[in-house]
Each structure stands twice: as structure tokens, then as C-alpha cells.
């Protein structure tokens, strides 16, 4: 088998699993809060160390031979199917594993401070460890079926953590919404895999590991299903899965609601790691998309549309976490634009830098919310730069990074994506991307201004955050500053060893930097009085955007409620009335009434019987005589 056997890989996924079990089973009764928090963080730290060791070993291999594999056992074998529980480490999964383990560790540490005193402190760390376990399974899986285990597993962790404070019905509902919406995407993912497996089997290929699939991608390109090219169909179906997990149109609606979870969870799962799984999956399966360029167009257009739509919605939100949530949806759209333009490495690059600065922004928001005793409304903040100096400086770093100000991280990756899109010839998409960049700079500046500038508008007493929270944010800030430069120098050649180095055109850089500058300047000019004037001038437009174009309401009216009513009707009418009523009980009633009818004849009256007897005799006689004479 291709690749080098490397038994160390399993040690990346085992510590979080152990952490999940220990914190989950021993929990409150046996572990102090301090021990539980340290245990949870330590597990992730171990994963990170093993990831570093493995990646350094991977780097020692020649560029063409960078693949490590660890097969734990034969997982499912039935008929022609054999799926191994096998892990793989190549440049793509290395980057992802390091980001996941690294950012997770920082957020675990932050959580020790953030969750202090929570009634279910141990459960929180248990779930968080479970998430990292499944995320690493997703990342390291050597075949799409095992990847699906991680894929749905992180969805489970997300569900549990969104509804972590389950006594609030709204939060519990947000968790369910996330799970169900993701399941719709997952059904698409599964359908894509079913078709892929069928195509492979038809061509005599039974291995489902990525190397085998990649080597036989031409089988998909040469097959068709229901008159549509199979590679295209598989590509689109897998992308449906990605739109669920990575919150793209039309399945993005769960992510803003997912902000009901504790803020570190929003930072880790719903910004830095899990939601990027779709981008990762498409990059992993890029060999299929190479065989079906039309599917890439679907990805490109969807990503572009989502990026723009979400950025527009983010402009008018009042809740600090909602702004960041829509920002995440929008940034994920950028990543899909990259993949759609054929530049998956640029997408993964942006995934990495985004993990740094968006995690930073979320943790900073968490620090603000923590400091204000739970307040999330931007209009009740203001002037916090004086009360929370560290948080302000850290937020400002994230602000510059996401806006695309050189030389911070976001600039490098976003600029690269825009260049790639432009080079692919999709002019309109590029233009929309550029406009979205300006909007991004605007809404994030607006957040910064509303929260930290002017005077404090709230009533809560403000307190700063402890070092256990600010230190991880500090590290993320460093990465948000330097991650772009480092990534451009090392990450891209590592992901695509053969590719030519990127040449940045000065004109393109100038254009994208001016878009960012325009957004920032506009925010400083408008936010405060003038933006409110604008909103008042177009009240309908403002309401439309503030209410997120009523997409949730439209879904409820067009899909959810009709389906629920249909389910109720199915039970009441066809099931209860027709099948059970008319047919089953009807048959019983028929025999019952026949019995009753016959019983009426059995009067017990001897004279009546004699008359019937006589009548019968007459009929018989008549019949006999008629037969004889006629």
C-alpha cells in the first residue's frame, strides 16, 4: 500500500477520547473544577504534541512521498465493501490537524476562565474533548466513510454544546435546528458517496480510501446517472453536505442560531474548526472536482453569493455574536470561492488565517460579554477601550486582520483568493468578492466602534478578564498578525509542492487594500449618528436586512410548517381513518354486523322457524316442478 506506516497517528485522536470519558464519567463527583479543566486542556495539548511530532516526521520525507498511514483495524467488511479504520497524514491533513489541535488547546485554556463556576463545568470539557476527537477523526480519516464518522460526530458535539444551557428552550431548539439542518446536508453527502461507491464498484474498484479513489476518478468522469455526468453529480451532492456543515446558502441558517452556545464554543466549533470541514472535504476530494469543472462553478457561485449575502446581513446586526456569526458565514464563502476557482490551497490558507483571527474575535467578544455580565447588544456597550484595555488591543488586532490590512494575516489569504478568482476569469464573482471585502471591513469596524469607542451606554458594572482568558487571546493575536506572512512563505509550497510560487500583482493588491480602506473609512464616518440616519431614511430596507431577509421565516412557511402539518395529516387521515379505520376496523365491523344480522334471524320462535321451513320447502318444490315441466 502506498504511504508509510506510522503508528503514532492514533495517538493524536486518543487523548481527547480519554478526556471525554474521564471528565464525562468521573465528572463533578470525583474531580475538582481545576482538575477537570486541566485534564481537558492537557488532553488537547497531548494531541497537539503528537501532531507536531508527526508533521515534523512528515517534513523529513521527500516532497513527493509525504504520506503517513496508520490502519487501526478493518472496520466494516460485508460483501464487496471493506472500510478500514485508517488514518492518513499528508500536507493537507497536517495543516488542518495543527490548526485544530492548536486552536482547540488555546480555547480549552480560555474556557477554564470563561466557564468558571458553571454547574456543568465537567460536562462542558467532556463535550469539548469529544468535539476535538471527532474533528481529528474527520481530518485524519483515510476514507470518506470514516470521514463521515467525524463529520456527524462534530455535528453531535455541536448540537450538545449549542444546547449546553438546555433549560432555556430557545437554546435547546437552536441545537436541534443545527443538527437537523446539518442532517439535510449529510444526506446529500451520503448520496454523493453512494453514487461514488456505485461508480467505483461498477468499474471493479472496491477500495474506498482516498488514494484509490483519486487514482480512479476517471471512472466517475466517464459514468452518468439519470442522464447527468456522475462526477458532476457526486461533486454537487458532496457540496450539499459542505453547505450544511460549513453554513453556506441555502443551509447556513443554523449557524447564527448556534451562537446560543457558550462563546468559546462559538469560537472553536462555529468559527475556527468545524464549520471549515466543508472546505476541507472539498479540498480532500478535489480530484473529483478536477474531473467535473461544472461542479466547481456551482461551488464558486454559491460561495460568492453566500459571502455577499452574509456580509450584508452582518452590517445591520445588533448582537455582537450575530455580527461575528454572519461574518463567519461570509468568510467561509470566500473559502468556497477559492475552491470553486480551482485554488483549494488558497482556500485552506484562508481557512488557517481565519481560524486565528476569527477565534480571536470571538474570544474577545466572549471577554466583553463576560465582562458585562452577559450583555451581547452592541448598542448597550461603547467606550470599553478604557475599561478593558487588553481586550480592546486584541480585538483591534483581529479587526485589522479580518479587514485585510497588510501585512496582517487576513490580507494575504483574502488577497490570494481574489487574485485566483480574477485569474480564473470569473469577473463578476471577483467584483462581488471585492465589494464583500469592503463590507467586511465596514461591519467589523462598526463592531469595534460600537463596542469600544465613544462612551459606555450600558448600566452593568464592567470588569476585566483574567489572564487565563487573555493569554490564549494574545497567542491568537500574534498568529493573526504573523500567520499570513508565514503562511505565504511556507504553507502554500507545503500544500502544493510542485506549484509555482505566487506572484502578487501590485495593481490587485492596491485594489483590494483600497476596498478594505474604503470600508473602514466609511465605518468611521457613518457609524454613530449618520448610520442611524441612513437606517431611518430607508426603514424598510433596514428592517429587511436587520431581519436577515426573513430567510428563516420563509423556510418555516414554505418547508417546515407544511411538512409538519402534512405529518399530522398523514397520521390523522390516511393512517387513523383510512388504513386503521376503514380497512382494519372496517373489516372487523363488517364481520361483526354480519354476525348481528344473522343473529336477528335466530329469534328462538318455533312458529317463525316453521314458517321459514315451509317457505323453503315450497321454493324447493317449485324449483323441482319447474325443472320438470319447463
Amino acid at each position, binding site marked *: 500500500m502506498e504511504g508509510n506506516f506510522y503508528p503514532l497517528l492514533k495517538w493524536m485522536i486518543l487523548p481527547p477520547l480519554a478526556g471525554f470519558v474521564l471528565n464525562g464519567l468521573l465528572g463533578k463527583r470525583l474531580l475538582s473544577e481545576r482538575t477537570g479543566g486541566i485534564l481537558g486542556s492537557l488532553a488537547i495539548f497531548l494531541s497537539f504534541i503528537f501532531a507536531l511530532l508527526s508533521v515534523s516526521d512528515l517534513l523529513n520525507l521527500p516532497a513527493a512521498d509525504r504520506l503517513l498511514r496508520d490502519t487501526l*483495524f478493518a472496520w466494516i*467488511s460485508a460483501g464487496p465493501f471493506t472500510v478500514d479504520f485508517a488514518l492518513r497524514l499528508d500536507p493537507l491533513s497536517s495543516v488542518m490537524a495543527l490548526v485544530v489541535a492548536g486552536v482547540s488547546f488555546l480555547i480549552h485554556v480560555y474556557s477554564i476562565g470563561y466557564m468558571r463556576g458553571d454547574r456543568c463545568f465537567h460536562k462542558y470539557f467532556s463535550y469539548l474533548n469529544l468535539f476535538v476527537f471527532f474533528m481529528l477523526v474527520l481530518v485524519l480519516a483515510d476514507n470518506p466513510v470514516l470521514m*463521515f*464518522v467525524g463529520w*456527524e460526530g462534530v455535528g*453531535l458535539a455541536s448540537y450538545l454544546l449549542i444546547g449546553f444551557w438546555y433549560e432555556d*428552550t430557545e437554546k435547546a431548539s437552536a441545537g436541534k435546528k443545527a443538527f437537523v439542518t446539518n442532517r439535510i446536508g449529510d444526506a446529500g453527502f*451520503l448520496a454523493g458517496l453512494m453514487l461514488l461507491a456505485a461508480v467505483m464498484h461498477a468499474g471493479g474498484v472496491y477500495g474506498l480510501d482516498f488514494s484509490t479513489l483519486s487514482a480512479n476518478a476517471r471512472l466517475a468522469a466517464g459514468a452518468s446517472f439519470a442522464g447527468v455526468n456522475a462526477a458532476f453529480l457526486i461533486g454537487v451532492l458532496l457540496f450539499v453536505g459542505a453547505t450544511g456543515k460549513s453554513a453556506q446558502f441555502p443551509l447556513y441558517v443554523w449557524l447564527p442560531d448556534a451562537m446560543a452556545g457558550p462563546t468559546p464554543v462559538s469560537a472553536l466549533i462555529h468559527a475556527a474548526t468545524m464549520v471549515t470541514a466543508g472546505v476541507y472535504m472539498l479540498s480532500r476530494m478535489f480530484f473529483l472536482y478536477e474531473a467535473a469543472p461544472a461542479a466547481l462553478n456551482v461551488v464558486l457561485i454559491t460561495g460568492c453569493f453566500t459571502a455577499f449575502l452574509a456580509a450584508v446581513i452582518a452590517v445591520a446586526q445588533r448582537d455582537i455574536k450575530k455580527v461575528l456569526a454572519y461574518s463567519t458565514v461570509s468568510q467561509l464563502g470566500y473559502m468556497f470561492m477559492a475552491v470553486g476557482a480551482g485554488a483549494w490551497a488558497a482556500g485552506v490558507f484562508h481557512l488557517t488565517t481565519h481560524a486565528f483571527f476569527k477565534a480571536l474575535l470571538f474570544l474577545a467578544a466572549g471577554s466583553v460579554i463576560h465582562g458585562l455580565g452577559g450583555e451581547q447588544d452592541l448598542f448597550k456597550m461603547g467606550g470599553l477601550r478604557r475599561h478593558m484595555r487588553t481586550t480592546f488591543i486584541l480585538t483591534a488586532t483581529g479587526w485589522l486582520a479580518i479587514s485585510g490590512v497588510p501585512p496582517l494575516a487576513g490580507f494575504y489569504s483574502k488577497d490570494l483568493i481574489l487574485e485566483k478568482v480574477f485569474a480564473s476569469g470569473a469577473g463578476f464573482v471577483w467584483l462581488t468578492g471585492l465589494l464583500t471585502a469592503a463590507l467586511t471591513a465596514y461591519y467589523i469596524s462598526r463592531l469595534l466602534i460600537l463596542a469600544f469607542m465613544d462612551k459606555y451606554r450600558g448600566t452593568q458594572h464592567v470588569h476585566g478578564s483574567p489572564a487565563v482568558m487573555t493569554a490564549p487571546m494574545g497567542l491568537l493575536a500574534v498568529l493573526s498578525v504573523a500567520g499570513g506572512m508565514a503562511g505565504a512563505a511556507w504553507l502554500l509550497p507545503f500544500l502544493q509542492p510542485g506549484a509555482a510560487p505566487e506572484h502578487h500583482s501590485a495593481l490587485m493588491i492596491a485594489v483590494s487594500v483600497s476596498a478594505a480602506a474604503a470600508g473602514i473609512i466609511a465605518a468611521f464616518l457613518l457609524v454613530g449618528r449618520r448610520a442611524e440616519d441612513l437606517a431611518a431614511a430607508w426603514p424598510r430596507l433596514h428592517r429587511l436586512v436587520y431581519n436577515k431577509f426573513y430567510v428563516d421565516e420563509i423556510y418555516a412557511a414554505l418547508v417546515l410548517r407544511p411538512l*409538519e402539518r*402534512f405529518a399530522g395529516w398523514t397520521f390523522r387521515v390516511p393512517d387513523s381513518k383510512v388504513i386503521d379505520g376503514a380497512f382494519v376496523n372496517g373489516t372487523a365491523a363488517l364481520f361483526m354486523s354480519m354476525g348481528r344480522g344473522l343473529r336477528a334471524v335466530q329469534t328462538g320462535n318455533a312458529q317463525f322457524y316453521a314458517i321459514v321451513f315451509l317457505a323453503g320447502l315450497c321454493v324447493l318444490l317449485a324449483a323441482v316442478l319447474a325443472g320438470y315441466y319447463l
Partner: protein
Amino acid sequence: MMIGPDLLNIAIYLPLAAAIGVALLPRDKEHLAGPLALAALLLAFVPALALYLGFDPALPGMQFAQDLPWLSALGARYAIGLDGISLLMFMLTAFLGPIAVLSSFEAVKEHRRFYYASLLALQTGMLGVFAALDLLLFYVFWEAMLIPMYFLIGIWGGKRRIYASVKFFIYTMAGSLLMLAAILWLYFDHQSRTGIYTFALSAYGNAATGGTGMLLFLAFALAFAIKVPLWPFHTWLPDAHVEAPTAGSIILAGVLLKMGVYGFIRIAVPFFPEAAMTAGWPIAALGAFGVIYGSLTAWAQDDIKKLVAYSSVAHLGIVMVGALVLEPAAVSGAVLQMVNHGLSTGALFLCVGMLYERRHTRLMADYGGIAKVMPAFAAVFMIVTLSSIGLPGLNGFIGEFLILFGSFKVWPCLALISLGGVILSAVYMLGMYQKVFFGPVTNPANKELPDLKVREWLCVLPLLALIVWIGVYPNFFLKRLDTAVNDYIRLAGGQRPPFSLTQEGK
């Protein structure tokens, strides 16, 4: 003792012997009925386990077989044995039996001797069905099973127990009579052609073709379809489940429904491969339809037990697709999924029973916020729920995955329809979970509920262990299936051709 037919007989008849013993207990020793029944079923599990471990997956045909003269004048023989498929069903039955008994200790207070004797006799009937290799013997066990189940629902059931038990009995009986007629037809036909009176299953491979074959196939198919239950023959199930005591529901969902699918695999399809080849798709289509239908009707329920009952219609629907598609992975998946459904739905009914014993209501609206009051129970229920909706890493996923991927190659349409169940199951199961466990505790009656007791843990833990085990390492179970599945597909006339994936299309 060698691992052979003797052990098989012990495993089958030990419960029946114990049933007689329990029934004959003196009145003042009635409290011993439960513990005695539990001891007997635990003891009977030992030979079953030995059979499972001693089974050689590589050998074709039946193992631990025994063939003795029985009713010689009729040509009926006492023939038993197990292949991989019946082995798994046999183990599932032997495994669920003790759990069903243990779950009744506090719920059942009246007529305890008769209750446990019924459960024990039922156990022998079910094990016998899976081991029988003679049609008459099969039929005897099949019918014998009905009687204790009828009593369990009719005596220890809920408010509408009489209606439910009579409905269950008559519905199943109507199907069985058709089957009996078909059996007799086959029996005399075989005699007229060969001069030999026999009920041996092996004598009836490809027993009839053409119009006759189709009619006979449909007679068997109807009897089995009622048991599955296949849409639209399912309405006895929700009533039976809602009214049955917890143990009855566990056995009903866990084992009895499997006999329908098992009947298709062991009898209907191999006997009439030609008819099955033609009628397979429409029947599987009813199954796929049932996935969506069962999910929607489950969604519409207010009663937890009824919801789980309707979800069974959905789960068994997808199993029917896998069983009839005649693709090896799908058939293996179908058999494994029967085990999975037995475990997860058995566990669900067990959990619902625990709630019922505390609050005496099954309406979701009467609960809310239970996760805060009973955290351990909430965790257990969550795992079982996830198993039921097929979360990867737990057992349900393996079966669904194999059925979907296997059947897609032959019947892509039915596979895609069944896939809809993946979405809907999350909707109704998580919806139910939320209504019961999340939100604030609004009902004062729910404020002080005790969490799981030791006895309840003992019921639940073995189920949880298997739910995780099958999800993580299913090969321990799948590898015993391969040979039997291939035998089945061979008897059914071979694999169906896959649909064309070439550029020209179909």
C-alpha cells in the same frame, strides 16, 4: 460437552422448563417468580453464547444441526440448526430475554407466576422459530409464540389492552392461516411429484414457479409482511406497543418484528425465487415508502411509545429494502440492522418504561426538563436516541450504511427514498428528546424524580455496550454473516443486475 445440537436444545428449552417451574410455584413463593425467570434466562444465555463463539463462519449451510423423526406419519421431523443469519437472531433473542425479565421486577405486581411463565414460554417459542428447519416445526413455534404474547398484552397491558391484544392476535392469525394453506399446498404438491411427505425446508428450494409460485409467494409474503410490519399492514403495531407492558414492547419490537423479515429470508424468497425476483421490487418499495410514512406519522405523535412504535415501521422498512435487493452488503446490513433495531428500540422502550414507572404517563407534554432531574438517565436516553437515528460510531449507522450503499447499486430510487429517513429520524427523535429532557421543569410532579437505580443500570448497560461495540467493531458480527448471506442470495436465484451507470444511461 461438545458445542453442538445439545447445547442448542438446552438454549431453546431451558426457558420452557423454567416456565413450568415458575407456574408451579406455591402462592406464598410468588415473589420468587421474577428472580427464577431471570436466573433461567441468564443460564440459557450461556449455551447461546457458546454457540455463537463456536460457530465457524467459513462453513456453508447449517451448523449444530439435528434431524430426528418427529411425527413420522406426516413426514414431519424435528430438524433444527443455525446458519449465520439465524445465529444472529438467536443471539439477539437470548440477549434481550433476561433484560425484559429484569425490567419487569417493579412494574409487574399481579399474577407474577403467570406473567413470568408467559415471558419464559415466549422465549422458547422465539428461539424455536429461528432454529427450526422443518416447516411444520417452524409453524408450531410461530403460532406458539402468539399465545403468551396475547396474554402479556391482554392481562398486563394498559387501558385498551383487550382491543390491542385481540387486534394483534387476529391480525397475525389471519396472516398465519394463509401461510398454513400455502404450506399444505406445498406439502401435497411435493408428495404428488416425489411420493414423499416432507416438511424439510431444504426440500422446497425453488418449489413453485409461474402463477402458482406467485400466489404461494404472496400468501407467505402477506403473513410475514404483517409481522414486519410492512405498510399498510402496520396498524396493529402502535396499539400493541402502547398497551403492552414494557417487557412485552421490548420483545415485540426487539424480536417478534424480526420474524417477518426472517421469514422472507428463510422461506418466502428461497422457496419462490422467480416470484420474489418479480415481486421483490414492489414489496421493497412498500418498505421504502414505509420509511417516509413511518417517520412522518412518528413525528405526529404526542405519546412517546407510539412515536417509537411508528419509528419501527420506518426502521423495518429500510431493512426490507436491504433484504430483498439481494446484494451481499445490503443483505448483511439488513440482518445486522435487525439486531440494531432490536437493541436500540428495545432500549428505547426500556427507557420509556422507566419514565412511565415514575410518572405513569407517556405523553411528552407531561415532561420537560428531565435532564436536570435525572442527568444519568438523560445521558443514557441520548445515546439510545443517537443509536436509533443512525449516528456514525454507534450501531445503527453500520446497518443503514450497508443497506443504503448496497441497495443503491441495484435500486437507486428506493435507496434515495430511504435516505430521507436519515433526515426525518433526526427531526422526530430529537424533537421528542427536547420535549422530554430540555427546557425548564414546568410540571411540579417532575421536580423530584429519582435517577437510575442499580437494577435499571443493569438493564441498560448491556444494551449500551452492544450499541457502541457494533458501531465501532461491527466485523465481530458481520463476519459470521457472509457465508449465510451468500447462500441466501444463491437460493434466491443470484444477485440482481446493477443498474447501468454508463454514459448512455439505462
